[in-house]
């Protein structure tokens, strides 16, 4: 029996990526790639021309994302993606600015920027790949490493309380807060679309396998096993109380809760508002290109 072969010369997403940057640096099974693809698709479906999207990252494996996307992008210093993005969003409010970075970058060394940008409700989207460790530097314990999980700098298991990121984002003022995993790509893309439509500070946490840094020391065989863990251990519950969203892998059968948890309205940070005549401030023409959808 002859097998017919189907060879696709081009992938529909090809124009979104920089093929000349391949091969990429990511390990087999890394969760960053699929989540990046969800973001690329969301940009296409957002109806906002690609030329108006900007992607900003800090440093880390996740931080490499802007380098692979065929769009305006910035690879800033470690921890500083948010102030950088904030400057772009304030100077050019017609742009759709998304920060795409890792848990260590956004919540360890750069944590201060996150809480203040959320407090001010700056019009940016923050997407955090949470792989529970500093992947790029070799699997060290970080501010989202679950209690008890092992890392190169936590050989007895982490004993520090990690951040519950959706809770933190909501408490500090984010207007849209979601958590998905690199297994839940359709829901993730929908959440990204919602964030792109919304004005103000939005936050999406993406749980993603890092088989090398997090999987190996924690006896998670490979990326497939971590994906299985997500499939079996995750429940979607958008109404779950925010303070119940912490992740504790030590407690067997304790679910990881996913969903779009927060979607509210709040005045968007606009430092020039007080200087504009009232009528102008009310319908700020600078952002007329972005429509605010109701809930």
């Amino acid at each position, binding site marked *: 029996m002859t097998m017919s072969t189907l060879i696709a010369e081009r992938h529909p997403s090809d124009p979104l990526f920089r093929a000349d940057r391949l091969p990429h640096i990511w390990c087999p099974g890394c969760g960053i790639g699929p989540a990046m693809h969800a973001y690329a698709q969301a940009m296409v479906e957002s109806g906002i021309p690609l030329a108006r999207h900007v992607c900003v990252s800090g440093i880390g494996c996740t931080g490499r994302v802007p380098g692979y996307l065929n769009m305006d992008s910035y690879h800033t210093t470690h921890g500083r993606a948010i102030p950088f993005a904030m400057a772009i969003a304030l100077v050019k409010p017609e742009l759709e600015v998304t920060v795409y970075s890792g848990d260590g970058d956004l919540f360890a*060394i750069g944590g201060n920027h996150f809480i203040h940008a959320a407090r001010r409700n700056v019009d940016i989207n923050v997407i955090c790949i949470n792989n529970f460790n500093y992947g790029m530097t*070799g699997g060290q314990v970080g501010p989202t490493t679950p209690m008890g999980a092992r890392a190169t700098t936590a050989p007895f298991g982490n004993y520090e309380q990690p951040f519950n990121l959706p809770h933190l984002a909501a408490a500090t003022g984010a207007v849209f807060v979601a958590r998905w995993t690199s297994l839940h790509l359709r829901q993730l893309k929908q959440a990204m679309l919602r964030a792109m439509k919304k004005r103000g500070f939005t936050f999406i946490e993406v749980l993603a396998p890092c088989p090398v840094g997090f999987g190996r020391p924690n006896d998670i065989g490979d990326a497939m096993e971590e994906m299985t863990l997500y499939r079996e251990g995750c429940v979607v519950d958008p109404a779950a109380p925010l303070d119940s969203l912490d992740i504790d892998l030590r407690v067997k059968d304790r679910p990881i809760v996913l969903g779009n948890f927060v979607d509210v309205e709040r005045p968007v940070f606009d430092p020039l508002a007080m200087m504009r005549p009232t009528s102008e401030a009310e319908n700020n023409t600078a952002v007329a290109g972005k429509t605010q959808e109701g809930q």
Partner: protein
Amino acid sequence: MTVTTQAAPAATQEQEMLISGSEAIAEALTLADIDVVTAYPIRPYDTVMQAIAKKISGGKLVAEYIVAEGEHSQFEIVKHASTVGARVFCGSSGVGWAYAMECLVVTPALRVPMVAMVGNRALDDPGAFGVEHNDALFVRDLGWLLCWIDSSQEALDTTLIAYRVAEDRRIFLPIAISADGAFLTHSQAITKVPSKSLVDKFLPPYNRGDLQLHPDNPITVAPQVNEDWVIEIRRQNNAATERAYTVIEEAYADFRRVFGRGPENPWFEEYMTEDAEIILMGMGTLSLPVKVAIRKMRQEGKKVGLIRLRWFRPFPYEQLARALGTAKAIGVIDRDYSFGSPFGSGVVATEVRAALYNAERRPPLIGFICGLGGREVTLEDVYKTTEICYSAAKAGKTEQATYWLGVRE
């Protein structure tokens, strides 16, 4: 009034181990029985912090291991731990060291004898993991004592010596030990690891005396003094740095007495310099290719030698002027840059030129910038350097003050 953590079981005999530069430092820290260490990952410094974590988890070292959320807090934490009497260790690389800058400024000013390791790495941008010396060098004017090492053995020995010097009451200044990223931090060599009892003979416990923060000894650390006292305090700092010349020599002499090894000249290593017409200079692991090249050139009758600088602060200007005086030409290879500097030279070449200014003989000196961003310094680079030095020797003057070597056009 000293802070003591429980002591861990120590090795009673000298051992030989196959370990990297970073692992050798962790061995020394175990022997020095440090009390507090802080960590924030960055390549190549992360190799040391992981080696220390292993020491602690293996029960070899009892110390507080604090995982900070960035280098700024990493250096702040150890600084304060030191003021209450803890023996501390810290370190970073490249931009991580840069991010700690505010604390790096304060540490010598507060007379904190911190020992830090800099796994030398190019500063971003453009991003690179490889070695350049500019990271450690930017604290050179602030009262940090700075040294460069080129082997695992020297990493271990220098770490012990560093505590001895830093914690000497005549000094009380921080010391940064620089290790070339990858070339030393990651490569292994047979290393002698001494017994704890010998180390105890060499390294007394840290005693901060009346400067120790303690409820029974209320003092204010880092008060605002304004112009009333700033210049006096700066001068005290300078005096301590000057005393370091004596204290470092004493420490090396004692090291040799206790361990039966170690260099006689703490300041720099001299390799085939006795009869050398051309003396090449540099810091860190570029000594390896340079030595190989020198051996090959010697076979062809070229009289070339190497001075590998160990201590950059305090800078051994008198000793260098003596050692370089007999050369016909000097070639300084910098693994750093100093844009807009005199003659466009690297940092070491500029310092050596200044050191020779008052010397009786001032041979022609040529600066070479080479091996940036972790690029290898090749034998070809060294031959080229020597050739240029020979023509300067023949002409009796320097045609061009600085060359960039191994650069793609």
